[in-house]
């Protein structure tokens, strides 16, 4: 077994930790989002994109989180598959609907940004298509878990699917450099690519999305722990 912090590897300690950590992350998310949106809406319109630059503050964090959540999903799936870690399996299951929601949000807000800038709601461009594939992997993961009655088999099959889907992550990230693309390259992590007046609210919104995910992930894992306890108790009651 690989070493893990006790509060993450022991369900009892995890429940005690997440009880205060989930609302704390939620409060951080609200505070960061309020400041980020205030700064974002106070920034002047971009000289090329005009007021549509306001969509950047909600689209870019959703797009980055779509991949980040999948990294967590694949990592937790790996721990569950190889080390049979119960909490890791609950963490993977809990991450999937959050990742699917954020990926869908990235696709919709991207489309609403693309229409006025590119003149098209959608193009079969490498970045857009690979993000759509990412969304389909999330949906397939959720569907696979729901379709098998045997929870252990469902967890194993879904974990394998999650690890296969991880191959798509570098394609999502480097699609704009490997292929000609309408989608712009990475500007968030490139020094000087964004004027501070846009970069500051964008980083704050990125942290807000990350905190919101952290909070919701903990709440969902808690729900999974409760579900497994309820089902185990129901089984014991049926046998008694």
């Amino acid at each position: 077994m690989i070493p893990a912090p006790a509060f993450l590897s022991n369900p009892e300690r995890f429940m005690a930790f997440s009880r205060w950590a989930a609302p704390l992350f939620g409060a951080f998310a609200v505070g960061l989002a309020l400041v980020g949106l205030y700064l974002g809406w106070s920034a002047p319109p971009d000289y090329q994109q005009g007021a549509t630059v306001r969509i950047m503050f909600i689209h870019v964090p959703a797009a980055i989180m779509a991949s980040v959540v999948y990294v967590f999903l694949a990592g937790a799936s790996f721990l569950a598959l190889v080390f049979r870690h119960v909490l890791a399996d609950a963490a993977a299951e809990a991450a999937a609907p959050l990742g699917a929601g954020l990926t869908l949000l990235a696709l919709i807000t991207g489309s609403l940004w693309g229409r006025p800038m590119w003149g098209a709601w959608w193009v079969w461009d490498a970045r857009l298509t690979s993000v759509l594939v990412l969304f389909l992997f999330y949906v397939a993961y959720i569907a696979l878990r729901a379709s098998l009655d045997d929870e252990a088999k469902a967890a194993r099959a879904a974990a394998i699917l999650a690890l296969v889907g991880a191959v798509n992550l570098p394609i999502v990230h480097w699609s704009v450099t490997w292929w000609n693309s309408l989608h712009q390259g990475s500007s968030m992590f490139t020094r000087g690519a964004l004027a501070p007046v846009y970069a500051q609210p964008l980083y704050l919104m990125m942290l807000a999305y990350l905190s919101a995910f952290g909070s919701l992930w903990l709440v969902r894992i808690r729900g999974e722990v409760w579900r497994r306890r309820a089902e185990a108790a129901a089984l014991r009651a049926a046998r008694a």
Partner: protein
Amino acid sequence: MIDFDVGKYAAFIWPAYVVTALVFAVLIGGALNHSRRWKKKAQSFPAKAEPAGK
């Protein structure tokens, strides 16, 4: 100074923000509902009831 005047791009910017609010509402509501439902169910079994407040 906040500037809500988005001019000709209003048809794209406001729906993007509305969709964002809706998606977050669904994610938050879904997570809280899932957790509360199963907590209630788990605590309905007295033999293995969890310590209160966890």
